[in-house]
């Protein structure tokens, strides 16, 4: 739509330009080929020096560990995202905030689970993702029921509207925590989807496709993970986000599934998911379903860069960077443990 092309750059041109520069620094296949030849983590560090990462590990004392690399990778991404968020104007600033909410949900669940296992709060706080911190986060350990969680902690945060669907007076326990996580995420995803749809234009095109895939992926994963647990089918239906391609018929069918084969039958109705299920398996040498989902996500994210003057590129960059971090950590783990059998099951991006 023409007006976007004329006016987008006024407010968001700098950040999009910066972002495309960052995107150019994402590791290529050649870099991964070099990385899998490393013998030690120091070699990994040497290789990363010649990429956009530069000397980010230069001030870490040797010997390196994978957790140090993890922290530094995350720190780099956080710096980039925070810089962009600080320079963003509406509506990009709200868009970036939406992306941050998913990290907030993860942090909240992490802290609740940690508290349930009896860990002290100051041990858990450093493990939280820096993109998802907010003031009231540290007080999570007070909440032992979800009503308390809402009333005390989350009511002033942006996550407040998302928890409305799952407030109950029961005590928090393992099961509930997962339900809370999924309910929060479902509301958040639907809210995000509606926000993007309202933006219209290329943003809506790109983001709605991406979020629809995310919703469908969650629906499949929830279904598959719920086999053999006490989660009833009605409860399970309540956890499916409704903004995906599976809504409404696919979700209904998924709600009736009892085992993996039936899930596959449901997926067969949708050509893009049929392909993912067909080529995956649990035999050694096959890609797992999770990996196929990640691959599909990477494909969608790469496609989003083909369009200009839309916000989807920001979301895509963060997702691709996360995938890259997962790749580097996977390779790092294989190298550190000298277990090179599956070292090339990373997911190449460019």
């Amino acid at each position: 739509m023409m007006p976007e092309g004329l006016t987008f750059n006024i407010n968001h041109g700098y950040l999009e330009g910066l972002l495309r520069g960052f995107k150019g620094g994402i590791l290529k296949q050649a870099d991964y080929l070099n990385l899998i030849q490393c013998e030690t983590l120091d070699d990994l560090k040497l290789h990363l020096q010649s990429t956009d990462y530069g000397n980010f590990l230069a001030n870490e004392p040797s010997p390196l560990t994978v957790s140090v690399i993890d922290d530094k990778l995350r720190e780099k991404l956080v710096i980039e995202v925070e810089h962009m968020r600080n320079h963003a104007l509406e509506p990009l600033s709200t868009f970036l905030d939406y992306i941050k909410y998913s990290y907030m949900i993860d942090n909240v669940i992490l802290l609740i689970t940690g508290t349930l296992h009896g860990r002290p709060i100051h041990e858990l706080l450093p493990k939280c993702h820096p993109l998802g911190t907010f003031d009231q986060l540290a007080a999570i350990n007070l909440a032992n029921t979800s009503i308390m969680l809402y009333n005390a902690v989350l009511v002033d945060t942006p996550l407040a509207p998302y928890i409305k669907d799952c407030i109950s007076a029961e005590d928090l326990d393992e099961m509930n925590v997962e339900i809370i996580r999924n309910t929060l995420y479902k509301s958040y995803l639907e809210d995000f989807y509606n926000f993007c749809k309202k933006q219209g234009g290329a943003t809506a095109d790109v983001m709605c496709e991406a979020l629809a895939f995310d919703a469908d992926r969650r629906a499949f994963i929830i279904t598959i993970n719920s086999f053999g647990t006490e989660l009833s089918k009605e409860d399970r239906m309540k956890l499916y986000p409704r903004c995906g391609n599976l809504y409404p018929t696919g979700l209904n069918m998924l709600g009736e599934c009892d085992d993996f084969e039936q899930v596959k039958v449901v997926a067969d109705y949708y050509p893009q998911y049929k392909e993912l299920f067909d080529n995956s398996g649990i035999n050694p040498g096959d890609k797992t379903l999770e990996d196929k989902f990640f691959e599909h996500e990477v494909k969608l994210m790469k496609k989003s860069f083909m369009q200009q003057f839309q916000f989807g590129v920001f979301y895509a960059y963060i997702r691709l960077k996360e995938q890259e971090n997962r790749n580097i950590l996977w390779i790092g783990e294989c190298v550190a443990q000298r277990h090179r059998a599956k070292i090339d099951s990373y997911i190449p991006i460019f």
Partner: protein
Amino acid sequence: MSMDALLRSEEMTLCQMFLQSEAAYACVSELGEIGLVQFRDLNPDVNAFQRKFVNEIRRCEEMERKLRFLEKEINKDGIPMLNTGDNPEAPAPREMIDLEATFEKLENEMKEVNSNSEALKRNFLELTELKHILRKTQTFFEEAHQHQQALHDPSIAEERVGLLGEDPVTRSGQQNKLGFVAGVILRERIPSFEVMLWRVCRGNVFLRQAEIEAPLEDPITGDSVYKSVFIIFFQGEQLKSRIKKICEGYRATLYPCPETQAERREMAIGVMTRIEDLNTVLGQTQDHRHRVLVAAAKNIKVWSIKVRKIKAIYHTLNMFNLDVTQKCLIAECWCPVADLDRIQQALRSGTERSGSSVPSIINRMQTRMVPPTYNRCNKFTQGFQNIVDAYGVSCYREVNPAPFTCITFPFLFAVMFGDMGHGLIMFLFALFLVLKEKQLEAKKIQNEIFNTFFGGRYIILLMGAFSVYAGLMYNDIFSKSLNLFGCQWVLSPLSPEYNVITSKPEERIFVDPNGTFTGTSYPIGVDPIWSLAKNKIAFNNSLKMKMSIILGVSQMFFGIALSFLNHRHFQRPLNIIFDFIPMVVFLFCMFGYLVIMIFVKWLKYSSTSKPQPPSLLIGLINMFLFNYKDGEDNMIYSGQQGFQSFLVIVAVLCVPWMMLGKTIYQRYLKRYGQ
């Protein structure tokens, strides 16, 4: 040095070096100091971390990391680092171990001192916070007392009741004991903290807070932060645990605060003494840290240079090939033929230094590879060479335009700039940079724009000097003219215009050169009368344009002549016939002819020429359009029409000569053999 030395790039040769493994390090160090060889990478397919000396390079990077850490600490304390401008040589490999040990010791000491002072500062912070709490809570408890008294005295207003319980009946017996916690929290967190307290405890707690005016020092980061004292009153154990959890979450530190005033006063005195003790200990720790850092600061620059040199040597050694017998390293390098002696000398001294018995061998190799272009420069020609290289580095042994540009570039700049005053300012600025060269270089300024000017200081110097000369020629100083030698246009008192000047000075008059010009021209430069003329710009434009054409065309001819030198050197007769000659002819026919016409027009016509002299520009255009309709009046010399037509035809013929000649000839050669 041969005649060719400045004209062309240096003659290079490929050399092979055989270095004994023990001597290799010292030899490379010596070669690095003289900076005359370029090594070729003999292991291009090998990954960076599979090379031979990768471990040493890792050790160097570790050392660099420790040095960076020390520099950061030194900068934090504001200690100046001594920079004597020394250039120490790279230390031998065994000294590297000593350096590593020194750095390790320093780093450990610094880390220990830092952690000690961190612990002390944390202690200090706690005591300070406690001190503030004891002071501030004084007021809170006094208020509490007032409330208490108010309850016993019913005459005081009812609404002041609240803190110590609402029910006056229970007042009679014992006091309803309210628990409290006191602590300190960052100021920014207080609003959120209050809200959280209110929500979680359902409004059943009472928070009072007071700001601490002086900022406190955070023990880890060293930043000054502002904090506030707070005290929370509550009833019941359950609330207490909740409050404690919230405080933990907001990183508020809680302190035990005694209830009675007497106890508080005692505690305050104790705290003060402990604070003083801590201060002394902190002072001593800081002194010790300062001493360590000052000792390190003396050497740190030298150490940095040494470590960088070691790393560079190992990077170079990685490019060498290990011989089959593992005894010696083979290296290939490009070096100028003229410097082979110096390189031999360096190798010899390197071998001696390492104490090896086997001498290092260097021998020249024949090769078909094109050698790299090396132009030897000094600090003056380096700037010009950089400008020329920016357009493209010349091929091996081609004529190097840089020595010529030393003069032509500033000169052409001056022709365009042409102002004595501004030129003088430029010259003085550049002179300052040149005279203060050494000091400015030692400062190692990082500002990119300054470095651009500083790097080009000689260029700017010449540009300024030549601009002064050009300004003298144009008679232009700060856009005004000088009358140094007396104006040569004299208005005689008998002419009618004279009265106009004296009676009506603002009115414009027409000054005819025939009567006014004295006949002798102003010796140097443009006559100052032109600064008063309304048609000064028209006159100057014509003058400057013609001069520019003359200078430009001469420079083009000069460039083509240089290309002839190249053709002759590389023995390419084809190029001479099919490139050089048509280029010269083409240039002459079009622009060389124009230059000649400019001179003819200058010499032939004067102010006494009756008809308007024909315009050269129109003449040139008409020449190409074969348009001679305007007739004989516009001809400058007889036979002009025929001669010009001939020139244009020749010029047009040059184009296919240049474009197709060489191609057709070479194709012919290929088809029909030699």
